[in-house]
């Protein structure tokens, strides 16, 4: 197992290098750069090529591409992501500011999703082809069909029109004021969590149905064990594996992928930062964010694989 873990960790390195090369090339292929985005987009009558040249030199954009790449990769190896081309602030500072909010939102949405998905999925499987099953399936299909940002807009409008209230507009950390924090984040967490619970519910239901048809479950029932005991001690452990995979990967996505939801709720998160970095052609920040998300995906994948081995003793890694 130790050897397997080491092998997996080492395998991450070429993957990350590949991602780094790809994102570097893709960003340079797209037209425009940060200097144009800053000085040509505001409708100013006065354009100064001198000023733009000064800025490009300051940012190293006048250097050959191979040199820019080498500088970046050298920094990356030292875990130095450099400075944002747009603000000049250290990238770690830019990300740190938004990370807490995105992480909290991802955790809240995932928890809500699992709290909904697992019991509902089990219920639907146990009560297959009854009205309970149909109700759960309708609920989950509605979640799949409903974009979370649309649900968010409806939530805000409902609160505004019916209760004449909108959530707080500025992020307050949980440890500073839990009430303000939850008042802001519960709504996007619900909107996103509902959407992801739909995927988990359907996965849980079909996995559970498969497991419930197994011989050992029939044997357990024949022995007269309580249904609850059968479900929790025998069925769930086997049915949870695919659900775990899906929901873990979705958690990784939640960290930087909630762009539109963050816009709707005006959340200062990593998703918004991502979009702004790309639209401003902030190469260094975009590259850093892509590497962060890629690393996160790899780690989550890895943890899920290890969790598999823990959950299912039949699985042994070499």
């Amino acid at each position: 197992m130790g050897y397997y873990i080491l092998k997996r960790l080492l395998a991450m390195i070429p993957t990350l290098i590949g991602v780094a090369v790809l994102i570097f090339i893709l960003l340079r292929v797209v037209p425009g750069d940060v200097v144009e985005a800053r000085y040509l987009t505001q409708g100013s009558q006065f354009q100064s090529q001198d000023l733009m040249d000064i800025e490009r030199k300051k940012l190293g954009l006048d250097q050959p591409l191979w040199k820019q790449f080498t500088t970046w990769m050298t920094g990356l190896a030292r875990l130095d992501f450099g400075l944002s081309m747009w603000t000049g602030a250290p990238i770690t500072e830019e990300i740190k500011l938004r990370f807490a909010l995105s992480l909290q939102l991802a955790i809240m949405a995932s928890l809500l999703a699992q709290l909904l998905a697992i019991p509902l999925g089990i219920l639907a499987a146990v009560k297959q082809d009854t009205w309970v099953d149909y109700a759960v399936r309708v609920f989950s299909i509605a979640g799949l069909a409903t974009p979370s940002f649309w649900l968010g807009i409806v939530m805000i409008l409902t609160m505004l029109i019916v209760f004449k209230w909108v959530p707080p507009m500025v992020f307050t950390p949980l440890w500073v004021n839990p009430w303000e924090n939850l008042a802001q984040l519960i709504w996007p967490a619900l909107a996103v969590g509902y959407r992801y619970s739909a995927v988990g519910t359907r996965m849980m239901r079909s996995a559970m149905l498969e497991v419930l048809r197994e011989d050992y479950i029939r044997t357990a029932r024949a022995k007269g064990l309580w249904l609850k005991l059968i479900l929790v001690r025998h069925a769930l452990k086997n049915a949870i594996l695919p659900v775990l995979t899906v929901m873990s990967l979705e958690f990784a996505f939640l960290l930087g992928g909630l762009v539109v939801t963050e816009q709707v709720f005006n959340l200062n998160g990593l998703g918004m930062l991502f979009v702004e970095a790309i639209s401003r052609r902030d190469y260094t920040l975009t590259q850093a964010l892509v590497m962060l998300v890629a690393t996160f995906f790899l780690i989550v994948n890895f943890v899920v694989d290890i969790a598999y081995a823990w959950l299912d003793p039949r699985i042994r890694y070499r």
Partner: protein
Amino acid sequence: MKRLAGLLALAAGALLTLSAQAQTPRSGGELVFPVPSEPPSYDGHREETFGLIHPIAPFYNTLLRVDPNDPGGTKPYPSIAESWTVSQDGKTYTFKLRRGVKFHDGSDLTSKDVKASYDKIIFPPPGVGSTRKGQYAVVEKIEAPDPATVVFRLKQSSGSFLVGLASPWNFIYKADILAKDPHWYEKNIMGSGPFTFVEHVKGSHVVGKKNPNYWDKGKPYLDGFRAIFMRESAAQVAAVRGERAHIQFRGFTPKDRDNLKAALGDKITVQESPWDCILMVGINHEKKPFDDKRVRRALSLALDRHGASTALSQIAIVKAVAGVQVPGTPFATPPEELNKLAGYWTDAEKSRAEAKRLLREAGVPDGFQFTFTNRGIPMPYEPLGVWMIDQWRRIGLNVQQQVIEPAAYFGVIRKGDSQVHMDFQCGYIVEPDLDMYKFLSSDRNPANYGRYKDPVLDALYDKQSGETNVEKRKQLIRQFEKRLLDEEAHYLMTLQWHRIIPHSAKVKGWTITPSHYLNNTLDTVWLAE
């Protein structure tokens, strides 16, 4: 009639303002406002975005400002300078500075600081960027003969110099700091303005609190302000509607205004003004057949601007039919004169007939296809683009629209790859020198993407720029406008943007102007109970 309407609109704005001013300002409260964009740095001399002005201008003073009670937004008004004189030849401007103005660190603001700030803007040291250096090319040197006097010596007289000094971007910085590090103000804030800096949480908000030692005694009225960065307009509207924010200083759409009025009734006040922003059609003179002025005139004649003004003003942030100046402002051409220019006739059918005739004469076949390049921003690029394509199709042109993402847009246009494209400009003060500079020959102004050279136009610009007699200057501007829009049709104006600011009725003491860069120091703003 339209000039009268423009003047009446400005007068109505003034009356609204005066009636508000008649109430006694109340001290206290925190003004909360969303800002759709965040500044990349704090240096007003370097940046171009209103995202800097809205949250950061309250921390600074400028040498002059625009009269905060003037809805036209064109009158220079004392700020750090309490008075000024101009020499007989119009080449020397002497400013007397107020005594007792202090920076937020307690040090005195003197002429040395004004000189250092303007040296940074006009004669930046190597490696220091100054975006609007070109605006002050007429300045020869700046002197500070004593702590309370600043002298600007010009190479020639200028009709716009005084207004140029009221630029909201020209923050007065501390000379000692600039001497040590001319980049210091990019990452730090320390001014003499009505508010002192409290915090900036990136991506979230900027907070300022009342400067208790402000030189204008009794002001500011507010205890502080909170500028919250909100990119999404729906979130901004929700914030105002939910009464979590008081005002948004850039502008909302007509629909947002109507929704807010319907929801909040008399809790909302709406101020409106023509806006010193305009979209215009840039025509690449290096691409055939657009090198032929008959074709360019035809494109302009095809556009029924008067009809569009009525229709589009209901769905987009555009309204008035305009020439090179914001309608209703001192140098704007009266409508009865403007309507004589090609493309401004009130008879749309006659105009289209003339357009078709010109195309035939120029040898452009019916169904001629060209690409119109537009910027990928919904408002108001999309509705104006759709309108123009429809209008051009009515004179037998087959137009394809190519939409380009904003960050890449001007890079593409600058390369000269487009045939006909959407261009735009936003001025920070309504002033012909600023608003007409764009149309100078491309070897004088690289922001002219039409890629033409017109020495006659350049000469007219230079002449009006140096003219200090207002009436003579107006005539020169008319000649410039006629050549630009009619005779040569180098650029085609669409419709003037229309600024709509619905805000909480509690907000008093703020007057809308045609520029969203003005009146943002918040020293005159107060909150009613």
